[in-house]
């Protein structure tokens, strides 16, 4: 079946088998390797990407279900000049990762979380990342990273009054 969709702001058109999972379409067909296959059972969140701006686990979405929609991976958060998004920068600055395997999924889940709730409490961040497992950090620096990103995003959106937080994040 032919699918037409937007991936990281670029229009794509590909012939896919209906059973092709979105994660395999992204990694194998398009060569976008940020999203990882972790548990492969909708638990760990390593494969998290944005579908129309909302976090989803791409191991449990068919590529055909993304037909006509917009997909964003961690690669798509980076500007053309190589500048990382505020969430990505916050993970680096706050040492929000160790081995890095869960990080692309954490960053995408956090980006979606902050678009829905720009001023989360620490508890809301912890609950909002319930679907993403990290086996290294003990989560503390990840939570710190998301809270730092929230603070920075709110400073940015206050100074640029027309931009809403979702645009700033993406």
């Amino acid at each position, binding site marked *: *079946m032919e699918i037409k969709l937007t991936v990281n702001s670029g229009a794509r058109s590909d012939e896919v*088998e*209906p*059973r092709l*999972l979105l994660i*395999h379409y992204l990694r194998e067909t398009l060569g976008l390797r940020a999203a990882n296959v972790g548990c*492969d*059972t*909708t*638990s760990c*969140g390593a494969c*998290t990407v944005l*579908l129309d701006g*909302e*976090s*989803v*686990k791409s191991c*449990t*979405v*068919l590529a*055909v*279900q993304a*037909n006509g929609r917009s997909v964003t991976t961690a690669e798509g958060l980076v500007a053309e000049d190589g500048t990382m998004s505020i969430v990505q920068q916050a993970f680096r600055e706050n040492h929000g990762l160790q081995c890095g395997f869960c990080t692309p999924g954490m960053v995408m*889940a956090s980006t*979606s*979380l902050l678009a829905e709730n720009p001023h989360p409490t620490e508890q809301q961040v912890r609950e*909002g990342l*319930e*679907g*993403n*497992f990290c086996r290294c950090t003990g989560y503390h620096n990840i939570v710190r990273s998301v809270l730092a990103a929230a603070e920075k995003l709110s400073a940015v959106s206050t100074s640029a009054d027309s931009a809403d937080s979702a645009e700033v994040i993406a």
Partner: protein
Amino acid sequence: MIPASFDYEVADSAAHALALLTEHGEDAKLLAGGHSLLPMMKVRLARPAMLIDIARVSELSGIKVVGDQVVIGATTRHAEVAGSPLLQAEVPILAYAAAQVGDPQIRHRGTIGGSLAHADPSADLPMTLLALGGSVEITGPAGTRVVGADDFFIGPFESALGPDELLTEVRVPRGGGVSWGYQKFVRRANDWAIVGVAAYDGRVALASMGGTPLRAHATEEALRSGASIEEAAALAAEGTSPGKDFHADSDYRAHLARVLTKRALEGKTG
């Protein structure tokens, strides 16, 4: 893990979905959010030859008040149910329960109709529909019928929904001021309930205490005859048949049912 091959069609209306179901018979399955079906297909517990995608049928989605009920379209996603100001005001237990399903990513995809049709005895929404005394509207070749929650769940992962039928909407009573409580006992983040309890207006429903979500009839009866919460909650496991697994044996589940029912009847959430 990769599902077995299947054909895929996008339905553009409920009638189109039904026509495709009739055409393809028992080999076809309906796909909405896919968060119960696709995991089963990946481990080949399900091998439908045809998937009929109903996620784009707009008439099957949405939340509205109709008389003394709130009607929720079958493909309305958990995140929409949880975040609906209408449901938070009119049926707060349902909005709360939807927010307990899985995790944010799962709630962005999974649907209320899908979760009910999957009929997992340990899941949040079947138990909640039972506590609410809600119903589902089912449409098939023979027409439309409404099935109450008490008659809808008939076994583990088995409901009154026929293979040629479509669950079109979910109906729950309006009750913004009604007292309710909700308890879900889990050991790990984003897990299913080891035992769950939903209490609403004197009705008490249990998850993971048998092959279907169950009413705690003895507890409800005791409450009606004026028993205290403590006395009524002590009867919560009567008539249930909880299984045992890695997490808990039957006795422990019965204990949890009593403790959690007391908390739920006290209006606590957690």
